[in-house]
């Protein structure tokens, strides 16, 4: 068996090298096993990564360790060359990537990928009605609303780029949804509205609050992540709800979409009590069409469910600097999902080449190297489809014990911040600061800003400065807001000079709205930047396809802004009543008195002597004195 595999693997090496780009290789090593297979990440070529690997993977056994993708996902399918006449038409892979962070925390990223060779949108084929691994609820949504791509994410917490580096798949706080519709759709807005309602029912979230006031149509910041020929941005819709809460009720339906549910495989680790006791929690669903094979003549649908969580029990002082699967998730792994063709756990050991930083147990000889967002990283691999991973106790508990103190982390190359400046409740200024920390390279960055209509932007005050000099963007697209109809949309393509800080400022005025008493508004995160970065070695992310081998694409989100909106003065009615009554009393009252008062002459009362004299005179009947 081993020899057979060896032979096949050798064949694979030859095929790979012919397909692969000569400039860089991504190596796959097995220390004990000398059937090392060399694979190249850059074989992505223009057909997309999956194409090349699919064809080659079909010749491998399912227990082979595969290369790790730059965002840590398994994209290649592995299934034994089956005696059945037709290959499996849908398949499922799951993986968990654990990255120990410099601060002593742990970043765990789950990815579940279901591939299905069918086309929901093709008319000549029979309507799809038999669902096996692909969840039926999503399949019906895709065909009913003619959706080409769907990306939805729910996030709690904010990703701290300076402390944690770049995430595998970024997401803004709250809920984010962006959808590419098929070009046959005639009423995109109507479909969008109904789609958000249906998704709010599926994911138990208040996505029905997405309407025209928070939906935008970006013209350049979003391109389809799946296959697509024409990109007409009229079929793209993007919306975020920064205030959306994520809790167990969102995780429950998300888990139910998995083929094994939460009963077997990596999903047993998802216990909400532990997952939400973290500083960052993000779950997402990404659906897109990808190449089915190398020739890329037909499509397959890919459903990726990702869950990223950062446990910070050490930095928040709640625990020791020691991690295990049981401590993180209160569960250990007992088996892989039987429906999965591959089920693996990867641990990032790049910073620990000789084991001086931390110690990993149970030890493994399987290693994998991959290039992630420009970085070469090494991973220890645990294959859960193998019985020996679970050991004697039939349970797999990964233990990570920190030995030394890690140094400072390298600064991330791209970083963005956003804040509101100004004072008072009438005007303000939104400042966006983008840091380019590369010493000598400049990159183009596309900034997308979506501001709600109640912050009235003054676009004539927009300034972009880098290194205290004016930096004119090469492309600006601005769509002003319409009150209660649509938000502002500002997209700019800016060249960031190397090792610089670029600041984008725009002034705004707050509109007075009587929304509720606690009137503050969350301005959604700016979906910022994409960068193109040239380096010697090709870099690739399997999630984001790139045409050139020597570039990678990064999307960075900034924090959402909390803006205080002016509230009406509720003591005003009282003040008005007092003032009015005073004015009426003083002004009108005196005027009325003047007009209606009659005056009578009043004689002063005469002195006593005179009164006595008058009295006597009256008795005598003589005229009185004056």
């Amino acid at each position: 068996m081993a020899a057979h595999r060896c032979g096949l693997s050798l064949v694979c090496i030859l095929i790979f090298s012919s397909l692969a780009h000569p400039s860089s290789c991504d190596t796959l090593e097995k220390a004990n096993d000398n059937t090392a297979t060399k694979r190249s990440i850059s074989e992505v070529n223009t057909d997309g990564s999956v194409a090349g690997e699919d064809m080659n993977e079909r010749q491998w056994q399912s227990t082979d360790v595969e290369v790790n993708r730059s965002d840590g996902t398994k994209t290649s399918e592995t299934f034994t060359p089956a005696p059945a006449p037709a290959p499996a038409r849908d398949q499922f892979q799951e993986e968990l990537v654990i990255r120990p962070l410099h601060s002593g925390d742990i970043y765990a990223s789950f990815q579940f990928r279901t591939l299905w060779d069918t086309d929901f949108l093709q008319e000549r084929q029979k309507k799809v009605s038999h669902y096996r691994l692909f969840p039926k609820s999503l399949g019906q949504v895709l065909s009913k609303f003619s959706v080409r791509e769907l990306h939805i994410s729910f996030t709690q917490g904010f990703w701290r780029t300076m402390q944690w580096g770049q995430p595998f798949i970024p997401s803004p706080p709250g809920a984010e949804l962006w959808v590419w519709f098929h070009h046959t759709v005639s009423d995109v807005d109507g479909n969008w509205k109904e789609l958000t309602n249906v998704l709010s029912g599926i994911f138990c979230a208040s996505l029905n609050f997405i309407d025209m006031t928070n939906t935008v149509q970006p013209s350049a910041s979003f391109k389809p992540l799946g296959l697509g020929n024409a990109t007409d941005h009229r079929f793209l819709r993007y919306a975020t709800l920064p205030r959306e809460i994520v809790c167990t009720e969102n995780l429950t339906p998300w888990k139910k979409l998995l083929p094994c549910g939460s009963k077997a495989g990596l999903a047993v680790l998802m216990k909400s009590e532990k997952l939400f006791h973290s500083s960052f929690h993000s779950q997402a669903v990404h659906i897109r069409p990808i190449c089915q094979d190398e020739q890329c003549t037909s499509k397959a649908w890919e459903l990726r469910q990702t869950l990223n969580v950062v446990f910070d029990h050490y930095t928040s002082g709640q625990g020791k600097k020691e991690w295990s699967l049981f401590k993180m998730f209160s569960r250990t792994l007992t088996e892989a999902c039987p429906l999965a063709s591959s089920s693996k756990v990867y641990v990032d050991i790049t910073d620990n080449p000789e084991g001086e930083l931390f110690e990993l147990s149970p030890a493994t000889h399987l290693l994998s190297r991959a290039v992630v967002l420009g970085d070469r990283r090494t991973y220890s691999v645990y294959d859960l489809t193998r019985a020996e991973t679970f050991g004697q106790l039939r349970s797999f508990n990964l233990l990570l014990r920190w030995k030394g103190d890690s140094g400072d982390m390298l600064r991330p190359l791209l970083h963005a911040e956003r804040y509101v400046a100004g004072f008072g409740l009438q005007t303000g200024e939104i400042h966006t600061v983008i840091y380019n920390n590369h010493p000598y390279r400049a990159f183009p960055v596309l900034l997308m800003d979506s501001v709600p209509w109640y912050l009235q932007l003054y676009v004539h005050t927009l300034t972009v400065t880098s290194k205290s000099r004016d930096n004119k963007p090469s492309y600006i697209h601005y769509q002003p807001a319409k009150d209660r109809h649509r938000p502002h949309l500002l997209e700019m393509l800016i060249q960031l000079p190397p090792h610089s800080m670029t600041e984008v400022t725009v002034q705004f005025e707050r509109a007075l709205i009587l929304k509720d008493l606690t009137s503050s508004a969350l301005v959604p995160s700016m979906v910022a930047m994409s960068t193109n970065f040239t380096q010697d070695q090709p870099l690739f992310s399997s999630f984001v396809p790139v045409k050139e081998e020597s570039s990678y694409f990064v999307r960075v989100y900034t924090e959402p802004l909390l803006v205080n909106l002016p509230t009406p003065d509720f003591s005003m009615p009282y003040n008005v009543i007092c003032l009015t009554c005073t004015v009426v009393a003083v002004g009108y009252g005196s005027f009325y008195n003047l007009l209606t008062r009659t005056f009578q002459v009043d004689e002063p009362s005469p002195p006593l002597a005179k009164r006595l004299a008058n009295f006597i005179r009256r008795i005598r009947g003589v005229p009185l004195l004056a």
Partner: protein
Amino acid sequence: MGYYSLLTTCAFIHLLVFMPYAYSNYLENKAGQFFSSGHTNNWAVLVSLNKLGFWFNYRHVANTLSVYRSVKRLGIPDSHIVLMLADDMACNYRNPKPATVFSHKNMELNVYGDDVEVDYRGYEVTVENFLRVLTGRLPPSTPRSKRLLSDDRSNILIYLTGHGGNGFLKFQDSEEISNMELADAFEQMWQKRRYNELLFIIDTCQGASMYERFYSPNLMALASSQVGEDSLSHQPDLAIGVHLMDKYTFYLLEFLEEVHPASQANMNDLFKVCPQSQCVSTPGHRTDLFQRNPGSVLITDFFGSVRKVEITKDTINLTSSVKPPIQRSGSSDMTIESLTYVDQLPVAEIIHQKPKQKDWHPPDGFILGLWTLILLVFFQTYGIKHLKHIF
């Protein structure tokens, strides 16, 4: 002797003959009882009316979740429960144990659990949405999980908890619903045949005022306090810092924990839950609109779910499996052109992007008005006789 033996044999034969008859009679009675309740499905609408953003209203959410838990445990599935929680307590930043809501102090019982589906949350819990759910008049794009799809054979349980007063309930601190509106909503449900029997439980201050005005048939109501009385909260938890549950619902939960799907406990036992000695307030109930005797109404008629089982002794032939559609290779000649991925940031393309062709919209009201004004002035000045020169 012979006579006696004849008698015993006769008796024996009679017994043999009539025993199966008696047994079948017994079965028929049981079956009759099975169908006598008259309902075929169960629904529950559980609403928590606390104001958004107030941590000390934790107990209202815990109340609703404990009823949710009992109802799920006794068999009603999530698809038949409409759960409306006006605030998120479990993942609130003030919760020292995230993703949990406890009903007993010392964190004994987590009523939030791991398998909860909240249908309406946060700002979606409004009077309008509540009444729309009850009457079924929801916009067409509302998903199924947010609808009450009951029919005339459904038994519905409605549970409300929050802050209330004499004749009204508070929703989100800016709205209220009055007892008359609620009674009218139930009448609408009755007219539209949306329920077979309805049990209404309310745990607020002066809760009995809410069911005073009901006038539709087949309604039974329970309240935690009479008019003029306040419903009190039960015990605080020092770690969480708030009162965990209200007294009435706490004892209701304890009572329901004893009930299992096959239990024969009836409504009279439910009326005895939380007497004044335990609850301080006087719970009340109303059964005059209900047609059956409360003593014959099982708890599981409302809190549990009916599962009708049909036992069949014949074999049933399953239809042959669905043939998968034509393989990819057959249709590959149709799609020859190779599909590609798109560049995520095509800088050159973006810079030279042509400005978006804006769709033509008919002129705005302002423009129309301006032109009308101009035309009017023109015709005013030059007179109508010039019109024929124009047209």
